[in-house]
């Protein structure tokens, strides 16, 4: 077990917890509301398309299952990166963070491929209800993934500057990890509601 000391604030706070980490959890809570609204819009409009193409004509479960697996494994890589920095291994932090970012890029590549395929089939964001709600929901999720990838690679670059990414400052990696895992749990919900239960 990793004995962590990230909850010890550098200066006293009213909660006794690190404010950055608490702020990240508050942000993730607000992002739950944001994605809740987008998912609600998708669920309400589901099955009400007047014109095709319809979800059953487009959705490719084997392909999306692989994308889902890739994103789940990126979460594993992220916790391994956090464990690396918490145990003082900068090398392991870099390897696993790069792995996380690359898996994120693979996921994004899959999403771009899927969007392109759907567009070739005649679906656009303004074509029907499915197009509007699907592209908005998965597009915002993809944007979150892209921001996460940029954040991860920025941390790797920062780690080459002495003192920026250290065991003592591992909370910064943990906060980035929280964001990354959130992107993963949002996809867990999207995969079930949008793909498996279309």
């Amino acid at each position, binding site marked *: 077990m990793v004995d962590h000391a990230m909850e010890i604030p550098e200066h006293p706070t009213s909660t*006794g917890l690190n404010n950055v980490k608490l702020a990240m959890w508050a942000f993730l809570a607000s992002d739950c509301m944001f994605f809740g609204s987008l998912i609600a819009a998708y669920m309400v409009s589901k099955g009400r398309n007047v014109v095709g193409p319809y979800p059953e004509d487009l959705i490719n479960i084997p392909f999306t299952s692989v994308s889902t697996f890739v994103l789940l494994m990126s979460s594993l890589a992220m916790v391994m990166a956090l464990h690396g920095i918490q145990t003082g291994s900068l090398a392991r932090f870099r390897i696993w963070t790069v792995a996380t970012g690359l898996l994120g890029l693979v996921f994004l590549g899959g999403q771009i491929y899927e969007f392109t395929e759907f567009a070739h089939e005649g679906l656009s964001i303004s074509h029907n209800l499915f197009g509007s709600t699907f592209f908005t929901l998965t597009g915002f999720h993809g944007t979150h993934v892209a921001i996460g990838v940029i954040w991860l690679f920025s941390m790797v670059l920062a780690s080459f500057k002495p003192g920026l990414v250290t065991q003592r400052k591992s909370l910064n990696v943990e906060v980035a990890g929280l964001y990354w895992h959130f992107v993963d749990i949002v996809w867990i919900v999207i995969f079930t509601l949008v793909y498996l239960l279309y």
Partner: protein
Amino acid sequence: MASTSHHGGAPHVEEHAHPDPRQYIRIAVVLAIITALEVAIFYIKALEDYDTYILLPLSALKFILVVGYYMHLKFDNKLFTYTFIFGLSVGGGVILSLMALFDRMF
């Protein structure tokens, strides 16, 4: 379990240690198995009428595993859990309310 506290009048904060890599890998294997199970259920015609009742709990289980172990909510201070559950409840409430309003329940 690690117990932390600091001076300056702030409350005592009790924390548990995070899992080790072996536990992280075990969770990843479970997540992969559940995903494979979900996809298998999607293709089983006999379960077509029940897929919602099977897939939603499986999805919830994956969600809980990631939040609990990878995001460390199981081990961290409960204030983080309460903060997240508040947002999650509002988000989930919006989904259920709108689905009920538009008569779109599962």
